[in-house]
């Protein structure tokens, strides 16, 4: 039996599909996950013993000797990545609209854009991390590196899971297996995707912009 037919037979006490309540519950829980990571980042902000540092010059170990290192963040690149991620949330709204309306063209088109944006964001992060690594910021270099990589790494892995999830849905959408009756499945993925975006909206100013 399809989900919609099943839902008709067994109405929920809230009127909201159980899968949707579940994803909201997961999102609530994940807020605490990221709150712990962000709090630790903030607690250790400014406490690194050596560089490289995010916004200031420092002494750091590079190519085997201590030298003066520049601030390591490249704000323009990350700002662009942030914008891409924000737009992807907009794109998925359009994709969902297409699914609910029954327009396979809209659905596939905008969902592809969403996935591409997600891939771009991941690519930007991979580039950023390897760039940092070459400038002397390894995972265990200092408190900034450990907290930064763990926090953004957790976020990045959430993005990755989202991209895999959305790609699976995209594949099914292309094969015509997401009719309006099954739009809920996309809606749930979209809620997750929006959450991942909102987390980045917190991380970006707290980590990248705040000094």
């Amino acid at each position, binding site marked *: 039996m399809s989900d919609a037919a099943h839902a008709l037979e067994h109405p*929920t*006490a809230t009127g*909201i599909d159980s899968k949707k309540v579940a994803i909201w519950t997961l999102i609530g*829980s994940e807020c605490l996950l990221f709150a712990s990571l962000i709090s630790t980042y903030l607690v250790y902000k400014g406490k690194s013993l050596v560089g490289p540092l995010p916004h200031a010059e420092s002494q750091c170990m590079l190519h085997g000797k201590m030298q003066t290192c520049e601030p390591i963040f490249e704000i323009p690149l990350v700002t662009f990545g942030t914008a891409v991620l924000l737009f992807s949330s907009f794109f998925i709204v359009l994709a969902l609209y297409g699914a609910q309306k029954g327009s396979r063209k809209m659905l596939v088109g905008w969902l592809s854009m969403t996935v591409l944006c997600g891939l771009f964001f991941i690519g930007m992060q991979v580039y950023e991390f390897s760039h940092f690594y070459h400038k002397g910021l390894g995972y265990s270099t200092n*408190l900034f590196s450990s907290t930064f990589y763990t926090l953004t790494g957790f976020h990045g892995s959430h993005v990755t899971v989202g991209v895999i999830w959305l790609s699976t849905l995209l594949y099914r959408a292309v094969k015509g297996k997401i009719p309006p009756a099954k739009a809920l499945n996309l809606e749930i993925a979209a809620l997750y995707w929006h959450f991942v975006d909102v987390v980045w909206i917190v991380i970006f100013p707290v980590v990248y912009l705040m000094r």
Partner: protein
Amino acid sequence: MATSVLDKAPAAHATAPTGIWSWITTVDHKRIGILYGATAFLFFLIGGLEALFMRIQLMKPDNDFVSAETFNALFTMHGTTMIFLGVMPLSAMFFNYFIPLQIGARDVAFPRLNAFSYWVFLFGGLFINFSWLLNAAPNAGWFGYANLTSNQYSPGLNTDFWVLGLQILGVASMAAAINFFVTIVNLRAPGMKMLRMPMFTWMSFITQILLLLAFPVITIALVFLMMDRHFGTHFFLPEGGGDPVLWQHLFWIFGHPEVYILILPAFGIVSEVLPVFSRKPLFGYTAMVFSGAFIAFLGFGVWSHHMFATGMGPFADSFFALSTMLIAVPTGVKIFNWIGTLWGGSLQMKTPLYFAVGMVAMFIIGGLSGVMHSSPPADLQQTDTYFVVAHFHYVLFGGSIFGLTAGAYYWFPKMFGRMLNETLGKWHFWLMFIGFNVTFFPMHFLGLNGMPRRVYTYPEGLNFEFWNQVQTWGSMLLGVSMLVFIYNMWKAARRPANAPADPWRGATLEWLIPSPPQEFNFGTVPAVGSSTPAWDLRRANGGALPEPASESGEGIHMPRPSYWPVVTAFGVLGVIGSILFTHAFPQWYFITITGAAILIYGIYRWAFEPAF
């Protein structure tokens, strides 16, 4: 497409399928509940054995029954086992079996996720106990304080087993918490508004919220610890600028809500048992609901009362002292309402009532010693001594275990269709009550008289022998009481399954269906007009409830059994457990890759398998 799925949907069975494969693929909340209960009870006995070994070692000063290293592993595993493999899954047994019944549902919201939670729990429990076979059982305490848990001071696999085992168990708890939260929110019978839910379901609901909000914090703390141990970071290590006290903060931000996770279900059970056996409604239902919610909310604001000796400074000390004292108020409200329930009732002196009253009586003591701890300067003499060991055993054993045992006697007939023997039950109670108090009350004395905790021995000149011996004898008595309980259950199993649907004149929906229930639970769910629907029906029917007829279950489609939950659980074990080896032997990464492949494959097959 829809038709073909419906054709394949399994019809509700008149009799449950048998055989081990039916248990491995079951998605029936009742079976999963029994699996949780049996597994948890075994782990509980193991934890009890660990305690007995400790008590024998502590019987005399400078004893050598076990070595220092073994003792440290024993107390670490005793705590970890009792909390994560004992009390929590015993509560989960009742969540599983009775939340759907109490709200009039067919099953939980996500039956396969439910099965998945059980298998992950089992694998996590086996994983962490596997360490005994490698002589590498966790030995840095169930609370694993940094920097003792660093690679420098705890080399070897012990702490790795602990970290990874807890991460595996965390997956199980989180999945179950989402499941029960959605179930309670969405699957209540018509007319069952939130403020008409049974108290056990209410307290369990609050417990799920605590689980959802607390477990992510320990997950992150454990990730940081693993990174410190094997990937060179300094989250908790001073040589890189880190601070060991951060571990304590993160741990206790989880750890304090965790103790409410441990007690609230037992509170819920007592709130069910007392009204039924007093023959009157729970006194102050609304106050009980809100005090439970308030305790949970406040529970996130008291964590540093575990850290009064760390030198946080007077303002932090004062804040947490006041918040801790504040939390005593709603706790007291509950106790008074329970007494109010008994007051003026017609007390039916059956075993469930004994354990429920025992719980209240013991929790009063535990709560009062907790208030003594809430004053930081006084706590500087009490913390890290046997006084606090007494306190938490009074609330965890006297509270949670007594409460869960009350639930066991109360709900055993419903689950297994057989009554437990009343005489044996009362023997169990008195042996356990006396054994418990003889074991744990003297610990108050020992603590105040200077005996620290987590010590594998003590010297002769400090006069600790007498009470230690008394405590050891008490613990033996506790062990005997467990044997009586096991014997009672074994004898019951050999009786025919002909217990009535409602042996106790219960107030809630689970008593309206046969004992044990048919697979589909309710043929038709009655409309619910209050928090005591069974009593309402009795009154409407002139005081009697007809024995529910066996229904055919025709036309009711049940969730189909599935093996993807257990396969996916293997994937989780593979990915997380393999880190034990791959951090040191990266060439073994193929285990992690295989685990990840099983995990992802399992998730995909699960997602695309029709649920019904």
